[in-house]
């Protein structure tokens, strides 16, 4: 896996720095050009490794920007809306003059659903939190984008920071909060820098801070930097992390809207969800709700990895045929691909023939036994061994699970062991036991990390067992 240039990157780095100085980090969000590495607080990718001598001397390379294009009927996430602080100020002063209920109704009627994976209606979440009769409330922007293949939040944080911050401020205004925090993964140093700079700029212009634009609404924003734990993307683990606790998942209810950060009512929203807010408020609820269907409305960012001829992040109308995304927008593949994993490591593994039948729609994906999730697409080459792929999935949940619940903690390791043995040819895959394990994890896990990892594994077992028939023990 990743043996290609990743091995080359490691070799070059260890030649220059020494093997004992080389560590590993999880996805750096450069999947559109790969060969990624992190050096002294900065990320590099593509051909940057060829300039390693200059990088060590302190040269900053001009890492390529993410290829980003909107193919939406009306761009909400990439367009010119809010591209300057002047536009930000205009829209914010309009909102601060309006009745909060009216603004909330626009969000609700837009049918915007959370883009972090769970798809909860945003207007409803904000409404629940606004109804809590508590003085202190928080808004948390979930910028812990850890899904392999995903870089859409990174794109928004770095290229559209005003949209994200605007969404947070409006949320704070509506629910009655005076503080918010962006939890940004440490693997995204440039995002942290840009958001920090933008917050300071807004403060100087009194678009953040005390009595914003002469009103009695005050709002402050902070940044928390993730420290390399995938589970921190799960909202209760993320809250625990901000509080300085172990990032273990909490039992819900109570949901964060009732008892969230520091046990106060909290709205946790994904970066993309928040970034959609200004576009919706500027163009009206209908401009969003009229795209796609009720539960999958509006536009959505989709990330295509470097096996596509045109890798990048694209804004698409919900409901767009996947065939169009893969072949017209993505240009097809640079080498034969047999399946796509859509929606991160917990998303479905979909054979190409099946994915071509689908549209970009949360419900359609779920009905077909897959998951659209956050919208990242990782291509699985024809010659890639599916036993190794399942092994990687189990290894991922074993390493990244928080260890709080038994099915998650033990199940992931037992699964990994089964596939260690299958790869080493010391034992065949005990298929009955594996199926029982997957069901136990699905039904018994506390959260969707170890609870959803069985989905892509079941997909592989359903569609690709022919590839490893002889490695299966049907009796065990």
């Amino acid at each position, binding site marked *: 896996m990743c043996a290609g240039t990743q091995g080359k990157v490691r070799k070059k780095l260890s030649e220059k720095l020494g093997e004992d100085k080389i560590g590993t980090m999880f996805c750096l969000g450069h999947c559109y050009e790969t060969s990624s590495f992190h050096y002294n607080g900065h990320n590099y990718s593509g051909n940057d490794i060829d300039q390693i001598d200059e990088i060590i001397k302190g040269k900053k390379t001009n890492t390529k920007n993410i290829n980003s294009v909107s193919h939406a009927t009306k761009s909400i996430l990439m367009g010119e809306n809010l591209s300057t602080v002047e536009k930000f100020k205009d829209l914010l002063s309009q909102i601060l003059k309006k009745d909060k209920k009216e603004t909330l109704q626009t969000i609700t009627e837009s049918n915007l659903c959370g883009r972090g994976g769970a798809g909860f209606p945003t207007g409803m979440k904000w409404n629940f939190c606004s109804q809590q009769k508590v003085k202190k409330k928080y808004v948390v922007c979930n910028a812990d984008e850890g899904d392999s293949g995903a870089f859409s939040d990174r794109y928004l944080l770095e290229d559209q920071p005003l949209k994200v911050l605007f969404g947070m401020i409006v949320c704070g205004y509506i629910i009655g909060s005076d503080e918010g925090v962006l939890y940004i993964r440490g693997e995204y140093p440039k995002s942290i820098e840009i958001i920090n700079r933008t917050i300071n700029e807004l403060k100087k212009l009194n678009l953040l801070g005390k009595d914003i634009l002469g009103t009695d609404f005050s709002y402050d924003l902070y940044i928390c930097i993730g420290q390399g734990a995938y589970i921190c993307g799960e909202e209760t683990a993320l809250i625990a992390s901000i509080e300085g606790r172990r*990032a273990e998942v909490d039992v819900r209810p109570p949901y964060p809207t009732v008892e969230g*950060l520091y046990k106060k009512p909290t709205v946790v929203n994904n970066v993309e969800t928040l970034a959609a807010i200004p576009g919706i408020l500027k163009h009206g609820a209908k401009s969003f709700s009229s795209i796609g269907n009720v539960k999958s409305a509006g536009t959505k960012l989709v990330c295509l990895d470097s096996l596509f001829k045109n890798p990048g992040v694209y804004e698409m109308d919900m409901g767009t045929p996947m065939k169009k995304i893969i072949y017209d927008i993505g240009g097809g593949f640079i080498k034969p691909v047999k399946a796509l994993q859509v929606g991160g490591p917990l998303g479905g593994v979909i054979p190409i023939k099946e994915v071509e039948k689908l549209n970009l729609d949360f419900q359609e994906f779920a009905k077909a036994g897959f998951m659209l999730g956050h919208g990242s697409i990782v291509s699985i080459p024809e010659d890639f061994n599916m036993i190794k792929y399942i092994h990687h999935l189990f290894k991922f949940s074993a390493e990244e699970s928080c260890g709080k619940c038994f099915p998650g903690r033990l199940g992931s390791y037992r699964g990994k062991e089964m596939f260690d043995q299958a790869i080493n040819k010391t034992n065949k895959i005990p298929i009955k036991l594996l199926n029982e394990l997957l069901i136990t994890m699905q039904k018994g896990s506390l959260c969707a990390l170890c609870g959803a990892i069985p989905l892509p594994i079941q997909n592989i077992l359903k569609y690709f067992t022919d590839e490893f028939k002889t490695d299966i023990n049907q009796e065990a």
Partner: protein
Amino acid sequence: MSKNISKLSGRKGLKDNLFKRMINTASKSKNGKEIKQLAEEYHVGMSTIHGAESFYEFLRPEHKEKKHGYVMEVHVCAQEHKVK
């Protein structure tokens, strides 16, 4: 238990965020003195700080020792990378 820690951490809130302080302490501390101070300041046990710190990959000593380069660990990314 966690409710108590949440509320204690919430006394200082986001302005003087415990997690941020932990990160700063972890980057400097070679002995337990700073951790003890931090625990006292937030009225939590030292084990709470140690326990939390040990959870995060970037705060572990072995990670900090690798001061320089990190190769991306690709768990679920099946790419045979494009060599340009």
